[in-house]
């Protein structure tokens, strides 16, 4: 008769459901590695090579000294780039130009980071981040505008913008933005105030009161958001929440610097790991909130799922396409910014910098079915693999590129559960799931 009120699922059911959902991706992972093993075996002729290779891979990714921290470092750009691609997919747009937007974001950050001297970090760092995000947003916004106005397909226009970006940044690094003092062809080093702090460096940085203020402001914001989410029922008064948040902020400002000077966890293990990781995680949460909790995100997803219904519902296609591309580009630009400000050793952008992140981030987004939290996990997987590949090559002589092959297979098996089921002779289940990629063709007319 009338619909039964849906019982809120218990935690146990939710856990079981989550494990069930992880079943196929896990199988995909295992199968992909098996394929990789086969390739290694065939090309090296020896069975032991497989063991050496995978041993090197895992040790390099996690267990050797600085293994985990380097894996996490590699994860950061993957997170941001995959979020960029995923935001596009959710709206029915294939932003294959994330790599170009990455470059433009990187060069913008590299420029702004060294264009000012003497600015305190509380201004310079956000400014540089903004510059990188803006660069990426504009670079993606142009194909977005073209698509909204003329229907030009974004696969091609963003791909072309990629190559324009490569050449353009090459030009900028080689000529106008070249560091005249360095022997290598690269941009000048960004000022210390614009760098993304390494974790090891945090206690020292906090001694500067302006930096402490910046951190306090961030904590205030976090406290407010958390209080809305966790204490929503008990603290309904907005003033009370702000009061709590400000209290947290003040405590942080006064207490954190001396506290960290006294004690800072894992002081020797961070190596190059930088706070960009936190930024990336925050971005993932932000994207989740945007897509599933806001009106804007609802529009974006509707446009992706059924553009005709979106029009009927009064949503503006032009605005949504451009907004999606801008957000996507901004995320990709932030990835480039993190690269320059946090990952690069020279805190600059060198000429023959090749990221190779391009297609990987597409694979990650598809693997995670465009879910931001899945992207966090999958990005770590890819980052770890990329990091571990160095030791794998050293250990066994197997070239790093086999990782790409494994990743391609992983994508194939994850995107085509039917293939995995067929291989393992599993029964077919029927789910009506949201597809990762809703656009099918060129969508003309």
């Amino acid at each position, binding site marked *: 008769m*009338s619909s039964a009120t849906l019982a809120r699922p218990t935690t146990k059911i939710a856990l079981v459901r989550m494990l069930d959902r992880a079943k196929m991706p896990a199988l995909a992972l295992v199968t992909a590695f098996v394929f990789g093993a086969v390739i290694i075996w065939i090309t090296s002729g020896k069975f032991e090579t497989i063991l050496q290779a995978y041993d090197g891979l895992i040790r390099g990714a996690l267990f050797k000294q600085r293994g985990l921290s380097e894996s996490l470092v590699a994860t950061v750009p993957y997170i941001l780039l995959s979020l960029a691609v995923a935001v596009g997919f959710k709206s029915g747009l294939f932003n294959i130009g994330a790599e170009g937007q990455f470059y433009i974001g990187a060069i913008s950050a590299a420029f702004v980071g060294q264009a000012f001297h003497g600015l305190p970090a509380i201004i310079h760092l956000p400014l540089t981040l903004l510059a990188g995000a803006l660069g990426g947003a504009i670079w993606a916004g142009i194909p977005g505008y073209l698509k909204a106005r003329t229907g030009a397909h974004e696969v091609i226009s963003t791909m072309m913008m990629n190559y324009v970006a490569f050449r353009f940044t090459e030009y900028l690094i080689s000529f106008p933005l070249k560091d005249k003092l360095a022997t290598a062809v690269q941009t000048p080093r960004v000022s210390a105030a614009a760098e993304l702090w390494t974790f090891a460096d945090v206690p020292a940085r906090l001694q500067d009161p302006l930096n402490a203020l910046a951190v306090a402001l961030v904590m205030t914001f976090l406290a407010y958001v958390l209080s809305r989410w966790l204490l929503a029922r008990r603290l309904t008064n907005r003033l009370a929440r702000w009061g709590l948040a400000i209290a947290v902020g003040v405590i942080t400002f006064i207490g954190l610097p001396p506290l960290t000077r006294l004690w800072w966890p894992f002081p020797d293990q961070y190596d190059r790991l930088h706070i960009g990781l936190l930024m990336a995680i925050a971005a993932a949460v932000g994207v989740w909130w945007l897509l599933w*909790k806001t009106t804007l995100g609802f529009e974006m997803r509707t446009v992706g799922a*059924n553009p005709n219904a979106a029009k009927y519902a009064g949503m503006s296609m032009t605005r949504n396409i451009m907004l999606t591309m801008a957000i996507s580009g901004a995320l990709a630009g932030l990835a480039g910014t993190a690269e320059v400000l946090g990952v690069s050793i020279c805190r600059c952008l060198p000429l023959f910098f090749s990221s190779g992140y391009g297609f990987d981030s597409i694979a990650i987004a598809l693997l995670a079915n465009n879910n931001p939290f899945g992207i966090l996990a999958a990005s770590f997987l890819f980052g770890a693999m990329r990091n571990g590949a160095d030791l794998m090559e050293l250990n066994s002589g197997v070239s790093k590129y086999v990782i790409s092959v494994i990743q391609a297979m992983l994508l194939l098996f994850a995107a085509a559960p039917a293939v995995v089921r067929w291989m393992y002779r599993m029964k077919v289940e029927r789910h009506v799931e949201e597809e990762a990629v809703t656009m099918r063709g060129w969508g003309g*007319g």
Partner: protein
Amino acid sequence: MTLALQASGITKRFPGVLANDHVSFELEKGEIHALLGENGAGKSTLMNVLYGLYQPDEGEIRIDDKPTRITSPHDAIAQGIGMVHQHFMLVPPLTVTENIMLGQESVTSASKFLGGLSVLDRRTVAARVRELSHQYGLDVDPDAFVRDLTVGAQQRVEIVKALYRSAEILILDEPTAVLTPQEADEFFVIMRGLVEQGKSIVFITHKLREVFAVADRISVMRAGQMVGTVKPKEATSEKLAEMMVGRQVILQIDKADAHPGEEILRVENLRVMDDRKHMTVDGVSLSVRAGEILGVAGVQGNGQTELTEALTGLRRVAEGRVTILGHDTTHATPRQVVEVGTAHVPEDRHKHGLVLAFPIRDNLVLCSYYRSPFAKGLELDFPIIEKQAEELVTMFDIRTPSINTSAGSLSGGNQQKVIVARELSRPVKLLIASQPTRGLDVGSIEFIHQRIVEARDKGAAVLLISAELDEIMSLSDRIAVMYKGHILETLDAATATREQLGLLMAGVVKEGAHV
């Protein structure tokens, strides 16, 4: 009496549905046999089994009294069965000739050795098409592109396609769905001509009147079962309707008199272009007042779709003016049209009306998600959205396991209820309902008709666009007939007759004079 075709005990199961339940059906040679039943009764399934599109789980088929199996449409064609589907199986960018010879192409003898890569011989096929066209009075132009043909012409092409392949048995699925009453009558003449030349015809319909016009025998199906076979002389509309639905059916809705109030919608000289740059709405003027239902009758393809899209902001207006409640909405966006107080039940529920991948909960706020109370600024307020969804599901009797079920999992009737629930959950001044009961079962049709009349009685102006003349006649207070982009005439529903409307729908304004 020889049997052209005999099916016994046909059973076909789909996941969750028993589409055909031990159905038996006989077609005599040279007869026109009507297969009647409401949407979802299993008629199309049975015919698809006979045409080889589905394989029956149980049952036997005999052609010319010989048991046989029909494994594919190709096989069916080889055995002399041709089918004209409700949604045509024609490829629009190809010509009539190319469509007809597709699958058994003629090639020039010189290049025959190249097999699949030999040169197509369009000329021979075109000649044969003209021959068949002449023989059966079908008037088909072999060189025309299918996309340029009218729906009626496309239907005739489908018939020639079947005859080209020497079909002896023709299955016609809802052939008159796209024809005016007069065109339908002409079609019946064609059918009798075919039968006189020795063909046997099964035709599927849900329209009671037609079967009396042309059938030799009528078989009724209901809920997957064959209820019975009667001769037209022995049956009445009421009896057939009862067989179709299994209970007494109210064929005419009971509605109070209209008390029209102020003018809500005014359309002045509207001209709208379709996607192919034809002016499909060519000077339409109409007016709808609060508390009345204006029904727009007309065969599909005369501009109704473009008219609705223009009124609701989904299509650009080339010329003219649209005023809703005093606001000029000629160039308004869909959102602006809604905010003025319009509700729109769209023609194509899958294309415009719903996001099938989203849960019902989201679909129910599809047009108002951005306003309070559903959203505060940017953020959506889910507890309120969910409460609204649960209320609507109860109020509109939407059959679903939960509000989080995806809309795609619902039946057609329930999907349409979701759309109607959503649209009527807002305060409605103007309701534009376009083909609101297409493809639905009788229960859902009744329900939606009641809601539309209810909206009218609450003071809304209702613009009803439908290709089902029965629906128009039963619901409307006034009826406007649309033909080739014009409103030919607007009649008072109480006095309008089927014949009058039929003539207008065919473009006949005065006796014999065509527009």
